[in-house]
């Protein structure tokens, strides 16, 4: 039989828009976000292994349910980083410095988890793992994740 290299395509889709995922995170996040409004970073501590989750997480790898709120520092260290332009990144070397954004993975003192933030007030060439940073709070935090969007060298 004659074989075609291109055969009919049948279009179809996956209605992800019909899913109603459930999360416990919202309730926990309410308290966390309320803390941000007061310029406090709250973590949830696991009774089993003592790990402190920031932002809060409703379950722990040790199979216990973290439940105790603790305040952690707004200072910490850079654990990893990358650079990004806004949408199309042209490369660290070639990028327009003013458009380069430094995205850092941070661990706040007293927390055991990784968060992502934008580092300001540092030259891209100076960023390093282990660098000390602190959260740059807005004057009037809104009680939203973007209140901790920016960090600066401590």
């Amino acid at each position, binding site marked *: *039989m004659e*074989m*075609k290299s*291109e*055969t*009919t*395509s*049948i*279009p*179809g*889709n*996956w*209605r*992800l*828009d*019909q*899913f*109603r*995922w*459930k*999360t*416990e*995170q*919202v*309730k926990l996040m309410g308290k966390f976000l309320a803390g941000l409004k007061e310029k406090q970073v709250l973590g949830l501590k696991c009774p089993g292994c003592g790990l402190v989750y920031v932002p809060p997480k*409703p379950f722990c790898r040790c199979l216990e*349910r973290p439940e105790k709120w603790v305040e952690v520092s707004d200072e910490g260290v850079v654990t990893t980083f990358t650079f990004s332009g806004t949408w199309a990144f042209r490369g660290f070397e070639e990028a327009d410095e003013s458009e380069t954004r430094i995205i850092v993975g941070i661990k706040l003192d007293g927390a055991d988890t990784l968060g992502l933030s934008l580092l300001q007030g540092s030259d891209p060439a100076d960023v390093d793992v282990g660098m000390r940073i602190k959260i740059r709070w807005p004057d009037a935090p809104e009680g939203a994740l973007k209140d901790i969007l920016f960090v600066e060298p401590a």
Partner: protein
Amino acid sequence: MEPGGLKNVDTVEIPAVPVFSWSVGNFMEKFFDGLKDGKLMGIKCPKCGRVYLPPRMICERCFTENEEWVELPLEGTVESFTIAHVKVGDDGELEDLETPETIGMVKHKGADTCIVARIEGLDPADAGVGMRVTVVIDKSAENILDVLSHYVPC
């Protein structure tokens, strides 16, 4: 055990709908080409003689590549049927149909496999296993999957 110690989960919804385009392959291509010529093309296993309609590249019983195309009669027998009072709606739930419709599983003489399609032109109460039906081919259908349109009683 009482699930969900934390009450009041929240739901998350998103507007995303991933899309797919399944290439049908050369065997189904020939089937669709046949339909457009008003023919029902099945394929026969050279080893056991089993005839696949719609066609398959491989005979699952013998693991042999099917090669002999056979034109099958447009008439077939209802092997099973159901009267649909509902259909799957966009939200994935069963929604009531205004008018019940008959869905039949039809085996054409000479074929060993079945085609599932609507049976029209009869009172659903008159549908029965063993009933003789003829396929209605709509060569002008825009969607390739609608060319094999439905069956009507002989």
